[in-house]
């Protein structure tokens, strides 16, 4: 055992530290397309004090630390670019508190989306959180760290807008509380009316601190939930349609998908509308309001509601939607990656056109999916390509297609979501230099030894 391994074993227990080639192999990779880089150690801590000690040790020894949830961001964000210690957070899964009337939960930094969902269903059936369609093992902390979006994003914004506080281990090993919990026993606000310090962490990919506890807002869970699909072959009209739909303020979530398979889906844009109600009356009222909001498009024969076949409903209503993951095996190759820029909704037609173009150019299976953020304030447009892991050529073509998406997205005024290191570089190159300087200052102050997920958000020159 090396000294560091021994020191880590002294912190988390021998069983939960590894410097074996097996873990090095696995944790060197994520399911996406970024090249692997092996960690020197992997640890699986159980409590915040252990994380503090690990980070203190790393800071002392100047060893990189990379927090990892489920590693499902797909863009290489948990690949230890400079080696060091990967901290697998998934032993810290406790749900510490659910405040029913204050509608929030406090969970540990490795708690999965699935676990919180299941817990709420059993113990607080009138509450829900904004669950993303990432596999259920994805963690809540990592999802807000990358500004994820979920079922309630059309109503309440990014999932990171729905937090009520953070507990973070800083590069120094100290623990900091962010939000009302910094001075109150209650976790009801992430910042306001104080200076909102969550910005020091969110979006930084763990490069400024490790979230060990997080408060998340919970929302009313209605008894009934249903889905409708509006079909149109007019990509150019989709932004207007979304505008009308969001005007109703009655839709839970709006996803638009366009994909070539199965064949009946080809050439159409499927505006998938989820809505909820506590009674049949409420549900029907919303359904009708949603229908009527698109009357003019129906009258003009630009689209219509398709009857959602009963067999399709459970797939669509599933949370998270397992079918999204299945896309990875369309080519029997277990691979899928998407670039999901956050971009204005009026860019929908251009995005839809671009994905077609790239799929054709690189001969790839694709799925375009937009999730509306806020009341048409923006969208995440997912350029998703499926690839076969056993086919290096196809993987290379997918990489190239995704790179073209990045260039396109930036030119179209979009911002990369969960940016790869290359995209981070591209973004920083385009960024206002004063802003970039501010980022540099923050990073240097927060992580003077550059140990926190190094390689990410590294501002080299301003």
């Amino acid at each position, binding site marked *: 055992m090396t000294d560091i391994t021994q020191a880590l074993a002294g912190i988390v227990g021998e069983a939960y530290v590894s410097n074996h080639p*097996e873990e090095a*192999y696995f944790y060197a990779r994520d399911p996406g397309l970024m090249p692997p880089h092996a960690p020197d150690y992997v640890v*699986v801590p159980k409590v915040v004090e252990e994380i503090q000690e690990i980070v203190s040790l790393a800071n002392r020894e100047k060893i990189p630390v990379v927090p990892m949830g489920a590693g499902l961001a797909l863009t290489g964000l948990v690949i230890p670019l400079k080696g060091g210690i990967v901290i697998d957070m998934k032993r810290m899964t406790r749900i510490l508190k659910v405040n029913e009337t204050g509608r929030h939960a406090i969970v540990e930094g490795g708690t999965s989306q*699935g*676990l919180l969902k299941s817990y709420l269903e059993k113990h607080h059936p009138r509450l829900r959180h904004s669950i993303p369609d990432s596999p*259920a093992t994805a963690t809540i902390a990592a999802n807000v760290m990358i500004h994820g979006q979920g079922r309630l994003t059309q109503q309440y914004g990014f999932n990171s807008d729905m937090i009520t506080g953070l507990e973070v281990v800083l590069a120094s090993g100290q623990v900091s509380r962010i939000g009302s919990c910094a001075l109150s026993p209650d976790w009801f606000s992430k910042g306001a009316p104080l200076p909102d310090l969550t910005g020091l962490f969110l979006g930084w990919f763990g490069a400024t601190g490790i979230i060990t506890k997080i408060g998340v807002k919970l929302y009313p869970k209605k008894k009934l939930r249903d889905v409708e699909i509006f079909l149109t072959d007019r990509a150019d009209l989709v932004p207007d349609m979304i505008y009308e739909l969001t005007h109703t303020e009655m839709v839970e979530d709006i996803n638009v998908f366009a994909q070539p398979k199965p064949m009946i889906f080809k050439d159409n844009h499927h505006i998938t509308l989820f809505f909820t109600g506590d009674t049949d009356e409420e549900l029907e009222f919303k359904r009708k309001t949603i229908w009527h909001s698109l009357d003019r498009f129906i009258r003009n024969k630009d689209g219509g509601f398709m009857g959602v076949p009963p067999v399709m409903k459970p797939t669509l209503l599933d949370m998270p939607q397992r079918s999204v993951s299945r896309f990875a095996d369309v080519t029997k190759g277990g691979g899928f990656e998407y670039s999901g820029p956050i971009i204005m909704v009026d860019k929908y037609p251009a995005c839809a056109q671009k994905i077609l173009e790239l799929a054709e150019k690189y001969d790839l299976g694709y799925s375009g999916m937009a999730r509306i953020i806020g009341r048409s304030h923006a969208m995440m447009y997912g350029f998703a390509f499926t690839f076969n892991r056993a086919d290096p050529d196809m993987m290379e073509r997918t990489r190239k297609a995704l790179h073209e998406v990045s260039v396109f997205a930036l030119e179209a005024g979009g911002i990369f979501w969960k940016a790869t290191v290359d995209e981070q570089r591209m973004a920083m190159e385009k960024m206002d230099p004063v802003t970039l300087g501010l980022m540099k200052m923050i990073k240097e102050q927060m992580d003077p030894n550059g140990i926190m997920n190094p390689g990410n958000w590294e501002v080299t020159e301003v």
Partner: protein
Amino acid sequence: MKYADMVHRCFRCGYCKFTSDYTDFNCPAYRKFRFETYSPGGRMWLIRGWLNGDIKNSERFQEILFSCATCANCVEHCVFTFSDDLVNIFIAAREELVADGLIPPPVRDYLKNIHVNGNPYKAPAAERGKWAEGTSMEAYAGQEYLFYVGCVGSYDERAVKIARAVGTLLVKAGLSIGILGEKETCDGNEVRALGEAGLFEQLAAQNIQAFRDLGVKKVITLDPHAFNAFKNDYPGLGGEFEVYHYTQVLAPLIQGGKVPLKECSLKVTYHDPCYLGRHNTEYQAPRSILKAIPGLELAEMERNGENAFCCGGGGGNFFTDILGGGEESPARLRVREALDTGAEIIAVACPQCAKMLEDAVKSEEMDDRLKVMDIAEIVNGCVI
């Protein structure tokens, strides 16, 4: 390796680790070790890395492969179309390791003992029928059913009691059954799961021949593991028998009033054995027996049925103990879950589960609150 063309298809999404409603991580090996490498997806990626020459066979790699309890939770919950083959893939990788002779010592010892003695206990074959001494069990001689007990039921002290309880209950219910006694040999389910396909086929051929010679048509097994081998693997090797787990014959006998039962006010929780439940979708027969006992309250654990959490004994781990030990061992987690139901008894339908859970109850110092009993033992205590 068989299935080599499939291992790259794992997306690493992790659905396979969970129950269907995401209540908890439900892969026993992952639950204990907590590195992704010990999860189903982790195994898939490591097997691929190993086949590609990126990692080597090592003690750790062996531990990772052999800690899989073949519980089939991943088969049940992986969202991809290859899910049915997950356990087969892990077994195929073990086969390669066995063929190279690079396997953990307890696995090697287990396989050797079966090869030499026909059982893992190094016990003489002549003692195989001893469990039945003093009971009304008769040697098989053309009865309607052969009652096959298996190695654990024949030799393990605790399991012998269960074998006796089941055997006598079936006789009492008027069933025409006989046993093989010293002529019985290992069914091979764990041998197959541990990757010794050749030895498995040899054992299966031996059993099939013995059954045929005796004119056996219907077999009742004590153990879900044997049940699984006879039902799913023997037919492919020419062994077509009508196979039942004992709960499947006992349930209709009880429904038909063949086993009159008295009031028994007990609070019981039932632990589904993986080889009866997920592998063979028999969830109801054991429950219907328990529910038929007047006054018995069945309190389900949070994870039950197809979401049941494995005791950690499957896939040979009962013998090799790679998954046992420590506070996070699957059996210890399971008995804590059982205690949470408020039940005073964990009912089991598998001698391996019985032993695993009983040991865990002791380690957790719950003996005063929780008892592990086979369903047949519970029924015996409630027969009029």
